[in-house]
């Protein structure tokens, strides 16, 4: 007997996260450069370096370190940052708020906007509006985030002076009192991630709108609103939900660039800092959070798509 789809898919996701955890740990351990050397700088003597290596457990065999790390993970302990000495979980929690606000606001703009653009152009496939919107989207999609960010800063901050160019000096908690610093980062994220989602929705809507089953209910006199909401959209929904998962993925990649660009104290900039400092436990923590989010979002999207496309349910 074949196992039901949802439990099987969840099991796969759990394996994926485990695999990612091992890979992340192994990769960071294989990176050239030694944390002890980095911490002590050029002036550390070989004896001091050796002592520090022992204190940090860096001289233990790989498998043992991996097992210790997993043991901690099971208790929600990701170790302590080599740089600050604070628990890695606390570092993550610091950045999380900023990044969650940034991606949350971006998503809240992207989803309705993509729906609006996708549905209107999909229903008027080939029209002047459709072609115009499509051209704009292709252009937007092809500008890299950092380039778009710099352009916007040059225009709105430096030339016009309407919006702050950077959040430097602000902590995560004070962002709430300065919402203006979020505007440009969100705009950059939205412009990039909106495109693929709007296009996917447009294709799905256009296909369902010209399908024979749609023409059939139209000729039998169904109201246009019923045709749209009950016949066209349900068929466009499955692929669009999966594209939405890819959008969230893209946002996570995007925040690394955008936070670095605008000096926002989030997960992205924290990740970059940790990598630069070879702060192994922290790098591992960040990688785990990013990978875990990706796996979870894709899991949810797959299950949603599975529910939305009835044919999958008996085909699998």
């Amino acid at each position: 007997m074949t196992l039901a789809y949802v439990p099987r898919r969840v099991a796969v996701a759990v394996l994926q996260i485990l695999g990612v955890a091992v890979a992340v740990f192994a990769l960071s351990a294989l990176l050239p450069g030694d944390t002890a050397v980095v911490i002590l700088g050029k002036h550390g003597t070989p004896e001091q370096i050796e002592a520090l290596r022992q204190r940090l457990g860096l001289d233990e065999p790989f498998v043992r370190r991996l097992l210790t790390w997993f043991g901690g993970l099971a208790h929600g302990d990701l170790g302590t940052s080599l740089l600050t000495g604070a628990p890695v979980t606390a570092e993550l929690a610091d950045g999380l708020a900023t990044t969650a606000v940034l991606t949350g606001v971006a998503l809240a703009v992207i989803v309705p906007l993509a729906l609006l653009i996708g549905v209107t152009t999909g229903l008027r496939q080939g029209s002047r509006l459709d072609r115009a919107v499509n051209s704009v989207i292709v252009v937007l999609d092809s500008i890299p985030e950092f380039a778009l960010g710099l352009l916007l800063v040059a225009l709105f901050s430096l030339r016009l002076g309407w919006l702050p160019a950077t959040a430097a000096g602000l902590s995560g908690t004070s962002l709430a009192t300065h919402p203006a610093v979020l505007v440009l980062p969100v705009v950059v994220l939205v412009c990039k991630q909106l495109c693929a989602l709007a296009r996917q929705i447009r294709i799905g809507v256009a296909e369902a709108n010209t399908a024979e089953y749609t023409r059939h209910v139209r000729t039998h006199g169904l109201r246009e609103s019923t045709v749209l909401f009950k016949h066209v959209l349900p068929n466009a929904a499955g692929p669009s939900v999966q594209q939405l998962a890819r959008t969230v993925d893209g946002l996570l990649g995007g925040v690394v660039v955008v936070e670095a660009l605008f000096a926002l104290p989030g997960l992205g900039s924290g990740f970059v800092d940790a990598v630069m400092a070879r702060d192994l436990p922290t790098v591992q923590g960040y990688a785990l959070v990013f990978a875990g989010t990706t796996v979870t979002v894709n899991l949810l999207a797959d299950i949603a798509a599975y529910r939305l496309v009835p044919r999958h349910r008996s085909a699998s």
Partner: protein
Amino acid sequence: MNRPLLEITGLAANAVGTRLLDDVTLGVNPGETLCVLGESGSGKTTLGLAAQGEHGTGVELSGSVRLRGLDLLSPRERRRRAARSRRIGYLPQHPAAVLNPARRIGSVLGELAPPSHRTRERRRDAVRRALESAHLPPDERLLRRFPHQLSGGQQQRVALAHALITEPELLILDEPTSGLDTVTRAETVDTLRELTGAGTGVLLLTHDLGLARELADGVTVLRGGEVVERGATGRVMREPAHEYTGALLAAEPRLPVSGHGIAEPDPSPSVGGLRADGLRSTSPTGVPLLHEAELAVPPGHRVAVVGRSGAGKTTLARCLAGLTPADSGRIELDGAVLDNDIHRRSRRQRGAVQYVHQDARASFDEFRTVGGQLARTVRLNRGGTRRSAREATARALRSVGLDEATHERRPAELSGGQLQRAALARALLAEPAVLICDEITAAQDVVNQSELLGLLREITERSAIGLVLISHDLAAVAPLADEVLVMAEGRCVERAPTGRLLGSPRSTVATRLVTAARR
């Protein structure tokens, strides 16, 4: 005299460079059935769409189509919609395409019910009545199904229920019985009679002469987009004025009055061939589809598998071919056991059992030439050079009556009948011991149908290939079959030499099939 319900005058339809319809004039009165007879490719479907003011992409309509005097070809979409609003019910030829894959059967039917049914209960009643008129059980489980969970015949009846639930003044039916078994077909005829009795006008587009005879008040014969003959049904059937009508009538399959005249097969049980015992199969959702089905096809023997739609005929065929692995049971070919799953059969074993699909168009890749696709079968099975494969392909195409030029054509350039022949040629190139034909004549007009069956007879007579003919149409396959296997609800209910079955059917299912086939 009253104005006709539907009035078509001087209708022409043009696709890029091709004339699909030319100067077609006809009228349908309330309570009247007009049958438009024609082979596939005669323009029936274009006419059916035009009669509701619709057309395929790239098709231009001219002339006049009026429904109760209102213009259905008005360039303004709003006006067209208002003119036909809920007055027309349409059953297309390929009903699967009009069922929304993402919606449950019941909820779409509920939406299509006339808006005058305001309450939930009244809607549900309307749905129930429409399903009953379309001869589907109005039970909750069917209403909660999605289109892909239905058999081809059930999909056709759901589409008919779509057309009926709107309570239309005009019903346009494009080949309404092509996927129906003989019993359901007879029931559908009764339903349509009731509807015309209540004042509905019916425009019936079909190649089924029997259906025309039973239902139509008038017949219009369409050929190549032109009307070649029109008149009262009785007159046209008795003394056709046009030679084409005569040819159509001559090609119709007729069931002999008694079992005599059909040769009894050699009763000695021959060894070898395909045997299957105790086949069981269950759908992914747990519905049992086959119970202990069995079948034997000695070399050169022709077995027809008949039954109502949903009886398990296709499941049996797919189990034999290994496409749907049977849950249990044993399949043997010439004494050697075949695995139930095609993936665990050797290449030789796969070639030995060939399955030909009902929908030839779906079984070809639309982007590659027919010859290229056939040659691939040859090279997969026998290896050899490109040239030798090409020669074998050309021979195979000739043997099914297609010319050399077919080799370079793409599926879209061939008619349904020609493609079905090409599919047969492809199956033969695999050098099969058994050929399984699943309703290969169902979507064909009478001329194509009799030619295809003739071709199958020729193939089985000049070789030792065993034939399994899956069909809902006993009348069509009986003349060819040595033996008939009757299926109902996943079981083999009766198995007998054709002559005996037609003369004295034992089970009630077989009796009903034989009676319905004689109507």
